[in-house]
């Protein structure tokens, strides 16, 4: 059995494959958004919380950064039912990916917050902002500029990490390729198509990320600064 172009092109637009692509996209986006929320909460708890909040945040980050995502997924889906805690496949995937992502993002967000000039805290206090207002209106928007590049990198990773969900039978892109490969045993063609789809998704994300970065850099643009110094 040698390489077959007809199978290759057929698999590219195979319904099962396209479904897998779609699942990978929304699974990545939902997990990333939830992970971002968890990351912000964990970062704020670690930086501004009382001792108990700090310990909880540090324990969470330590646990989920210190163990493989694959084990986390398997424990959530196949281990927890032993204790009577049941999640379906989709829930397990989102939960595992978001918890894992949140632990990494917490450290990225913490670094972003620390990169904001100390004078910004003074200035926002001085106009009468309370902690929540200082965070949401002044500190986090500025931290975003520092956070965006590594955040984009994390999402790039997320798109590919979702493939591990195939292990707990989530029908995303990787699982679709496995299923297609089993039909006619065109293993190489099927996995190459899956790989190509990942490449395409990651490339599209790269373009989107560049635009987001440009947006957040705009207030700090160097060329505009030079042009208006005279007046």
């Amino acid at each position: 059995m040698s390489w077959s172009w007809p199978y290759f092109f057929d698999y590219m637009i195979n319904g099962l494959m396209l479904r897998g692509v779609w699942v990978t996209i929304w699974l990545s986006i939902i997990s990333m958004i939830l992970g971002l929320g968890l990351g912000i909460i964990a970062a704020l708890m670690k930086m501004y919380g009382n001792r108990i909040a700090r310990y909880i945040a540090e324990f969470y980050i330590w646990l989920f950064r210190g163990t493989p995502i694959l084990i986390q997924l398997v424990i959530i889906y196949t281990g927890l039912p032993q204790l009577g805690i049941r999640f379906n496949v989709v829930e397990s995937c989102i939960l595992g990916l978001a918890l894992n992502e949140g632990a990494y993002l917490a450290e990225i967000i913490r670094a972003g917050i620390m990169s904001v000039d100390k004078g910004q805290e003074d200035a926002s206090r001085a106009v009468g902002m309370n902690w929540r207002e200082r965070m949401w209106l002044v500190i986090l928007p500025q931290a975003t500029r520092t956070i965006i590049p590594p955040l984009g990198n994390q999402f790039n990773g997320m798109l590919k990490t979702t493939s591990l969900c195939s292990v707990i039978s989530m029908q995303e892109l990787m699982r679709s390729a496995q299923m297609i490969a089993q039909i006619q045993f065109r293993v190489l063609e099927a996995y190459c198509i899956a790989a190509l789809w990942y490449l395409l998704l990651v490339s599209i994300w790269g373009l989107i990320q560049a635009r987001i970065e440009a947006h957040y850099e705009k207030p700090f643009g160097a060329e505009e600064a030079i042009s208006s110094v005279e007046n």
Partner: protein
Amino acid sequence: MDDIGSVVSLKNVKKAFGNNVVLSGIDLEVRKGEVVVICGRSGSGKSTLLRCIDQLETIDSGQIRAAGHLMGFKEVKGKLLPLHDSAIARQQRDIGMVFQNFNLFPHISVLENIMLAPARILKRKRSEVKQEAVALLERVGLPDKQNAYPRQLSGGQQQRIAIARALAMKPKLMLFDEPTSALDPEMISEVLDVMVDLSKAGMTMIVVTHEMGFARAAADRVILMHDAKIVEDGAPGDFFERPKSEHTRLFLSKILQH
């Protein structure tokens, strides 16, 4: 308040950073409309004094009343209880502060810098707030900079915007922490001009500065701090011509010799 006319009243205010005493029992009264200039060597406690008045630092003991508030505390049955973050923030709204390094919000435009607190904190109508912000830009002489980002402005322009941002909250008291120390010499006067205008309009101001020209022109009183204490407090004429303290004579000889 003991004195109805006092906008600022400090009683035996003490503050130390570890073993380093920065304020050792400061008493100070500033009346409504008064302009008080504070000078002194670096490390004499003058910046910390301003920061304590605006609750950017907490004091170890004593009492600060400013703009009608007992700063940082509330009085319950004769006892002083420390306020939480949001209540302190509400007190701070009545006091404007201008910093050495401007500290404008770099991620938003000049107009948004001025509008942010009144629109988002006081939740006032945007159209109204915008009108006032435009008027403030006019007042500090930068009507054409609405849409610029802070990064695009010179230091003097940024500091004038910072003054406008503080004024947007309609404060009863303005604190200036070395407002011209980070500026190139040719930009100092544009900032001082705005401050002189403000003093003429009747604003109560405490200004930490080494600009003795401003002190002579606009101050009602000049104070010298030395080693965490106020060692001289008088009208500019007395301060410069007939200082009582040896420290003042020494300080003046040092800054006036060139």
